[in-house]
């Protein structure tokens, strides 16, 4: 009857409860009761933690409100450019094309080159345009990147259209409004998806990391080993709570954004699956931080060290269009970059639902890989 546990265990085995799998059939079965009560415990733990609520909800909301109100005026103001000398491409545009440009750009003429450049340096102008034969030369201000992007975008469209005309195809001098909007997203348009991405990242990362560290430090994980609760109930309840928090964030941020003038485009609903997939990716990062760190301070520090720079490098705070090329390159390999990209494409850029597929696959793959790595560091109790 007695099962003798011999002393043949490896001498390195000093840990008390290694994560070795229990034999099949000896695992407690998934219990929905346990799942529910653990989820409720985690949810209450979250809403009663002021710092956690602040960073997952109010901090991103601040950004949305500040950008949405303060910078909206700057965003809607027309880009001002000066035409120096004879710029026939613009001046000879047909009236409807001219009208389209006038909606977004204010054209000034009659300035000398030096006067124009001086005003550009003072940021009174967004751009100075000259024509040298077949070449258009645009100088933009570094100070106002949104304005500069607007001007570049509009003129780019003009040049494209003109090129088509010159190469003998049917001239099409119409500037489609969507292409204009695409390059000159109003502040609220890019800040909302950016902050959704950032808020979700912070919520999921911190949620998983602090639950893991706190529960381990407070011996709750140890205590749960003594209750007939399978690991799957613990994990799924944490995942479910994080997904619920993320959907709540999505609803609140979009709601506030719309009050401040956010206009959603066709396949915005893809933000929901994107949010869920992104949450899983950041839960895996949180799992990693929580497994590696031994104190909640260390876990929070690590989570911050990962999510904050990622926010800047992923276009969550600043529009990537205005960012240097190396940032754009980095954003392409970061989970927050994929998430923000997918959210912007579907929510404000008018792309179809298919634009969400790749970011979803990438975040899910990332989640799987990082979870696998994190479980190698995981332990039920402090050693």
């Amino acid at each position, binding site marked *: 009857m007695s099962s*003798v*546990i011999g002393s043949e265990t490896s001498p390195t085995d*000093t840990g008390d409860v290694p994560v070795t799998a229990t034999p099949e059939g000896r695992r*407690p079965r998934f219990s929905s009761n346990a799942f529910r009560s653990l989820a409720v415990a985690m949810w209450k733990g979250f809403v009663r933690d002021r710092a956690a609520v602040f960073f997952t909800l109010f901090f991103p909301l601040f950004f949305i409100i500040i950008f949405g109100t303060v910078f909206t005026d700057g965003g809607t103001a027309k880009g001002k450019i000066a035409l120096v000398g004879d710029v026939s491409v613009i001046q000879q545009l047909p009236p409807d094309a001219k009208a389209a440009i006038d909606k977004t750009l204010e054209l000034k003429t009659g300035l000398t080159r030096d006067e124009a450049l001086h005003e550009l340096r003072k940021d009174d102008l967004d751009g100075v345009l000259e024509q040298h034969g077949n070449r258009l030369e645009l100088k933009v201000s570094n100070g106002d990147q949104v304005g500069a992007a607007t001007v570049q975008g509009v003129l780019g469209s003009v040049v494209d259209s003109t090129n088509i005309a010159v190469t003998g195809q049917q001239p099409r001098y119409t500037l489609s409004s969507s292409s204009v909007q695409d390059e000159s997203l109003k502040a609220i348009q890019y800040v909302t998806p950016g902050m959704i991405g950032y808020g979700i990242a912070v919520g999921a990362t911190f949620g998983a990391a602090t639950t893991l560290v706190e*529960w381990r430090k407070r*011996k*709750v994980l140890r205590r749960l*080993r003594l*209750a*007939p609760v399978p690991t799957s109930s613990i994990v799924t309840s944490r995942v479910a709570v994080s997904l619920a928090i993320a959907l709540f964030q999505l609803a609140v941020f979009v709601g506030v954004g719309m009050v401040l003038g956010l206009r959603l485009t066709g396949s915005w609903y893809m933000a929901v699956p994107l949010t869920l997939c992104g949450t899983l990716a950041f839960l895996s990062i949180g799992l990693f931080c929580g497994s590696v760190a031994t104190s909640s301070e260390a876990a929070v520090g690590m989570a911050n060290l990962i999510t904050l720079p990622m926010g800047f490098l992923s276009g969550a705070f600043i529009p990537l269009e205005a960012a240097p090329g190396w940032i754009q390159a980095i954003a392409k390999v970061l989970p927050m970059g994929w998430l923000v990209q997918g959210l912007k494409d579907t929510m404000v850029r008018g792309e179809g639902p298919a634009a969400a597929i790749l970011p979803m696959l990438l975040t899910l793959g990332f989640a799987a890989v990082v979870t696998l790595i994190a479980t190698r560091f995981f332990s039920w109790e402090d050693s």
Partner: protein
Amino acid sequence: MTDTIEVQGLVKRYAGKAVVDDVSFTVREGEFFGLLGPNGAGKTTTLEMIEGLRRPDAGSVVLLGEAPWPRNPRLLPRIGVQLQATAFFDRLTAREQLSTFGSLYDAPAGRVDEMLELVGLADKAGTQAEKLSGGQSQRLSIACALVHDPDVVFLDEPTAALDPQARRNLWDLLREINGRGKTVVLTTHYMDEAEILCDRVAIIDEGRILRMGPPADLVRGLSAPTRISVERAALGLDDARSLPGAESAEQDATSTVITSRTPAPVLAALAERDALAGLQVRGATLEDVFLELTGRAYRA
């Protein structure tokens, strides 16, 4: 009757040193069993190997007819454990802690208020666990161990942070649980607690069981003298030594203490001299047992 717990040759080593060293004992069904010993004796380690939280390096444990290691889900609903370090969910109130733990075991919801009442925390039901006093959180921790009405209860120093009143209340509670047929295993520093509560105790020091048996038997088996003390002013040292039956006598700042194996004539002589002011008579205790076994005084 079957043994509820059977421990054979249990060994646990840390850094090459055996902190539990060839420990064997059995606990019968319905018994109240105590592990008694000073800090670092190996009580917690022994207990946690029985509970299935730590893996023994050698030896075997059979708990309710099953092996507790590796984690054995068939055993878990039948045992209730209060860990030495309290384990609570963050920011949940006393009631929420209990109902969370309760639902992990599918315990009926009514148990929660019953348990709060039982450990005297009904008025603290809405207080977050972090804000309970040491003794209160200790009691909550015990309530959490009992919420699913387990057959075997393990308590690791349950009275450590309690005031005398709460300690006595908890003793009553544990006796009551034991009286309902539950097997109780506790560890303690306190000799008096072990003497009062336990059917049998194992005195453990440096990982080894020194002696095991009913507390009264352990004390009786000892030829320790009785200590009789009176106020220093009532009796001089020389007088004390000359009393019939006195083996030795000493004085401290407040009292004169006589040791004797035949206390009756000593007491009679004291009464005759009317030197009974501040009289205290102390028989041998488990403390004397520990002293005799280890050659050093017990410092819990």
